[in-house]
């Protein structure tokens, strides 16, 4: 017998997690069959709504595997990772690791990296819009101070390096895309994910550019980051890289937090 509201909510929580609770069924008005049927409505609604939230956060994964298979992945993930926050966009950080561990189930070696990209886009989308460095800001500084300049990526940015062509896989998942087939063997990619004014996006980086970005995000000064990039990619062009990053509004002043 459920003697208190706390008892009732504990029983309801157990029911939602899939456990049988005859004491809860007995506490519901109507015959036991109808009571159970009504309780199941809540169990299904909870599973469906959390699954939908996960699909909204991982839309590329859902597009790659299809909604039905995504539903199976989500169901098993949710069984092991309960939702703790009413802010649904915070749910799913461990999903990429889960997808990696389930490769036997989906057979797609690139799917975990696709999930990492989705999560990175979600993080960037929910980052504050910070002021970005412009060419005019730089022009206002004495030239000799530039090598010692501290730069960082805007809040919410991240670098994703993958052995798979994530950029093409992402493009193929977009509504109305002209890309109808992606060859997963098309090669590796390096994506810088970042917040824009209206959305979150990624830029495809060359090897040297990625090394440069990595240096900046580790707190290297401009000169040190450029040196690191030149070691990774012969012929690394600092001016071109810097110009591109300024053009994409990818640099903020200051050292990384």
């Amino acid at each position, binding site marked *: 017998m459920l003697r208190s*509201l706390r008892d009732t909510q504990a029983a309801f929580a157990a029911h939602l997690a899939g456990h049988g609770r005859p004491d809860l069924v007995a506490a519901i008005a109507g015959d036991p069959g109808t009571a159970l049927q009504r309780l199941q409505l809540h169990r299904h609604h909870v599973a469906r709504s959390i699954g939908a939230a996960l699909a909204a956060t991982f839309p590329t994964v859902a597009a790659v595997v299809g909604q039905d298979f995504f539903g199976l992945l989500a169901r098993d993930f949710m069984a092991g990772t309960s939702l703790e926050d009413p802010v649904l966009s915070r749910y799913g950080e461990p999903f990429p690791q889960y997808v990696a561990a389930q490769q036997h189930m989906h057979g797609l070696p690139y799917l975990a990296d696709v999930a990492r990209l989705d999560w990175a886009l979600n993080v960037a989308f*929910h980052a504050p819009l910070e002021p970005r460095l412009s060419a005019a800001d730089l022009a206002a500084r004495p030239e000799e101070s530039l090598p010692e300049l501290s730069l960082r990526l805007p809040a919410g940015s991240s670098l994703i390096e993958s052995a798979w062509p994530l950029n093409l896989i992402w493009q193929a998942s977009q509504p109305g895309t002209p890309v109808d087939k992606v060859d997963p063997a098309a090669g590796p990619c390096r994506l810088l994910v970042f917040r824009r004014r209206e959305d979150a996006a990624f830029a495809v980086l060359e090897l040297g550019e990625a090394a440069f970005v990595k240096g900046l995000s580790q707190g290297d000064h401009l000169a040190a980051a450029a040196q690191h990039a030149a070691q990774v990619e012969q012929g690394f062009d600092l001016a071109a890289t810097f110009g591109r990053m300024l053009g994409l509004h990818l640099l903020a002043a200051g050292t990384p937090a």
Partner: protein
Amino acid sequence: MVPPAGIGLRSQHLDELLRAPIRPVFLEVHAENYVRPSPSLEKVLRLRHDFEFSVHAVGLSLGSADGIDEKHLERIARLVERLQPALVSEHLSWSGFEGRFFNDLLPLPYTEEALEIVARNIGRVQDRLGRQVSIENPSAYLGFRASTLTEAEFLDELVRRSGCGLLLDINNVAVTAHNLGLDPADWLNELRGEAITQFHLAGHARNVLDDGSTILIDDHGSRVGDGVWSLFDQILQRFGPRPTLIEWDTDIPPLAVLLDEAARADRTLAQADPRDVALAA
């Protein structure tokens, strides 16, 4: 002054609302969608210059025996401070237990113990926000044997104990009455309803269960049904006009459809007896 009719604000419609002038409506946001920074929040803050807002929370879990999640309350409070909405509301339900969140508006037994807990939780929220919060009657799919009060009695008593307002969701009255075998008129007759601050209107789905019975699902995925419009007429005769919101959360239609529903609510409100209670502001 809050316009008589409003619409639930969906992210799909943000840009269109920012671009073009539309008929005067108020906008309701689901609080949990806007507590984090995002381009959508920035657009909402821009829209605030031209629209009155209602902040509708879905995750405070006012019926939790655990009490209020202070961290979440703090986030809601910051949003309310930034948006300065005309109305703030939450549901008569619970959705969290021992740190887990279920993303559903779960039912409460209507008992003295639950009354004390919900009134205390509402008090905590109102103290932190420094303003009245309106409590929405939920859509029910089941009832508890332990209940000693009807839903309407429970709501009226919450008003008395906590000083909260009431958000009367007319679609939820129709859904609850059908699912629990009640007459919506009886449900309403039991409600004193002195503290009603706003109405909600929405569509619902009708599902046929294995045993052939039907159940109404509060899915907010279609136009407001005729039965709910008719109930709205009766409610206006009894309680007078209040700001009235069109909710639409699944299968979101073009903005024009939402505005068309709001225009119908507007016309209905205009026909209500103006001597009745003035619009809350």
